[in-house]
């Protein structure tokens, strides 16, 4: 019983985007009896549609609409039109994500208080803390079926993990395990256990990995309260003379401009598209874009301090077999300024297939130095580095001169590393290489960051309206019935993969919105 709401129905909540934020919010609201129209720019793909072939899957799922880049980050040179590797589909990037689901450390909610002011960084404390978030994290972990939480067992370690674990333990690392993963180690919630197939990034064909595409979305639809409009690209959020938002203009699957009226609008288009939509919604009343009286919309873009370390051995590893990211070292996630930087980082196993390894090992690289690395592909092990990067006001999403297929200005993404990011990355490269050398690596490759998958912070949460875009509920400081529901509301990035926190915030936000609606406040 899938709902169908009228364009003039102004009692609905319109959610833009159906990923970890919007997809979860849509289901949670629908379960509470709230009527929801979710606008999704992409199409609907389910496990039977996923393709275990890297480039073919990329063409099927990735957001390939135009974007532009600037700044000194290497992505702007090597992948100038592709600042992010994220998904345009029902379920958003929960199709592509690796499944790593770890909570923020307590101190990471209070980055400014913990680290102190850092020159060039716009650090801030979140207006919420670990105690506030604990029950929501618990709900999120149960929803996603996160291993090593509740009574759920860990995943078994694959070849890539076994190499990583042995090296890490040889270095004296203690917090080494197969991760807390939203990938079933046993049948859970109607989804089967992981079959160690690889291709976690291409959509899990077994459905063993949690994705909103085949959990929250269909469950929300089953309530009769949720209508998902696929291939519907939000263009502009409208408002009335009182400054309240009233609806969303969007291009439908046939390219026709439609307008859906709304009681509340929740923006969850990801960290590039969400600020882009607010900026593209500028009006005479809000000439700098919606919810932008602070001039903070689009600023403080964070992408995590990332990088990878690959190494080759004299014998085969076959790292592509099995779960892509089920392996973690957490010892370096602590805040310990004696290492020469604030904040910390996680090391997580990672593998790429041969086609993507050729594209990402050393973008632009060629000649024997490059090809002899690939010659040893079968003997290669790999890990990803993910750490807290510094928010900077100048790292930002703005409107580009370039227009998309609908004639709308696309997002330009500007990024420069902060010296803290560089110091942390160099430390992580050194530790990652040491891990592999401890198990006999003959050659190591410190690999630069890929197009970003963790995109955070361009509509950040703040206590004071002048410091950010949304309050502790993700509600914009300026407009009471306009919410941000994705990773763009992150005040700081912490060291952890962000999806679990996005999901926890969405569950919490749904609870808040439903109770405020009942109370007649919005």
């Amino acid at each position, binding site marked *: 019983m899938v709902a169908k709401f009228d364009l003039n129905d102004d009692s609905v909540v319109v959610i833009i985007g159906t990923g970890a934020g919007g997809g979860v919010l849509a289901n949670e609201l629908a379960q509470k009896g709230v009527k929801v129209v979710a606008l999704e720019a992409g199409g609907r793909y389910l496990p039977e549609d996923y393709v275990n072939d890297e480039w073919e899957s990329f063409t099927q799922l990735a957001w390939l609409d135009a974007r532009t880049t600037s700044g000194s980050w290497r992505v702007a040179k090597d992948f100038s039109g592709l600042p992010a590797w994220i998904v345009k589909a029902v379920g958003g990037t929960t199709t592509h994500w690796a499944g790593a689901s770890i909570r923020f450390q307590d101190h990471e909610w209070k980055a400014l208080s913990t680290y102190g002011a850092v020159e060039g960084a716009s650090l801030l404390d979140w207006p919420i803390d670990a105690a506030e978030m604990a029950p929501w994290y618990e709900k999120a972990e149960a929803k996603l079926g996160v291993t090593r939480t509740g009574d759920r067992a860990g995943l078994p370690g694959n*070849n890539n993990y076994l190499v990583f674990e042995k090296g890490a333990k040889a270095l004296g690392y203690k917090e080494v395990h197969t991760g807390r993963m939203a990938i079933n180690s046993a049948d859970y919630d109607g989804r089967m256990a992981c079959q160690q197939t690889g291709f976690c990034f291409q959509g899990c064909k*077994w459905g063993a990995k949690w994705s909103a595409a085949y959990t929250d979305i269909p469950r929300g639809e089953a309530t009769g309260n949720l209508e998902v409009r696929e291939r519907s690209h939000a263009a502009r959020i409208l408002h009335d003379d009182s400054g309240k938002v009233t609806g969303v203009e969007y291009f439908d699957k046939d390219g026709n401009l439609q307008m859906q009226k709304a009681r509340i609008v929740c923006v969850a288009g990801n960290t590039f598209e969400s600020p882009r939509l607010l900026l593209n919604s500028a009006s005479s009343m809000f000439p700098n874009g919606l919810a932008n009286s602070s001039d903070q919309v689009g600023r403080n873009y964070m992408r995590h301090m990332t990088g990878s370390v690959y190494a080759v051995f004299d014998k085969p590893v076959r790292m592509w077999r099995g779960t892509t990211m089920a392996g973690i070292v957490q010892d370096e996630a602590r805040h310990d300024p004696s290492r020469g930087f604030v904040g910390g980082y996680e090391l997580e196993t990672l593998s790429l*297939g041969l086609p993507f390894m050729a594209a990402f090992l050393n973008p632009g690289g060629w000649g*024997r130095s490059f090809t002899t690395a690939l010659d040893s592909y*079968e003997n290669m092990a790999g890990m990803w580095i993910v750490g807290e990067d510094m928010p900077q006001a100048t790292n930002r999403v703005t409107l580009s001169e370039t227009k998309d297929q609908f004639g709308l200005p696309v997002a330009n993404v500007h990024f420069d590393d902060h010296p803290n990011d560089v110091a942390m990355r160099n430390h992580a490269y050194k530790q990652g290489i040491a891990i592999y050398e401890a198990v006999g690596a003959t050659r190591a490759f410190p690999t630069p960051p890929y197009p970003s998958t963790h995109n955070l912070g361009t509509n950040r949460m703040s206590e004071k309206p002048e410091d950010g875009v949304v309050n502790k509920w993700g509600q914009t400081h300026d407009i009471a019935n306009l919410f941000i529901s994705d990773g763009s509301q992150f005040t700081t990035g912490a060291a952890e993969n962000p999806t679990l926190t996005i999901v926890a915030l969405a569950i919490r936000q749904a609870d808040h919105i439903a109770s405020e609606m009942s109370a007649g406040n919005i």
Partner: protein
Amino acid sequence: MSKIERHGLTRRALLQRSVAAGALVVAGAGFIAAPDAAWALEVSVISEHQMATLLQMARDIYPHDKVADRFYAVAVKGYDAEDNKALVEAGVAALDAAAQAAGHADYVSIGWEEDRVKILQAMEGDAFFQTVRSGLVTGLYNQKDVWPIFGYQGESFSQGGYIERGFNDIDWL
């Protein structure tokens, strides 16, 4: 310098060189083939010399001694098209001019890879080089037939994944 190199890439010379070096042959009008006839590539828009140069250039950019010429041929055969003709003509002419300036008959006549690589390095920033290089990233490495040469197994879903087929079979740690 050998007689073959001095003659450059006349069809006959290429044939002789190929027999000598085990590389490419121009086997007939508009036709390039392996010496053992294991594969062949027809050109209709660009010249045989231009295609032979592209093949050598592809090998020099991403040299894998275990990967046969036919895979590189698949990766560059798309340059035999009207849309690419001007780019290829100018690019190959630039390679040959650089080779001649270094005392060789042309690019493909240079015997040592490292000498050819020096010429490529000097034109690394050019559109021709970058187009060929970036095209090879998918054109070469995304050929499913190439994957087994590197040990890569591709998809495993059709076989039930690796849960009972060696996801944790490492035996040397």
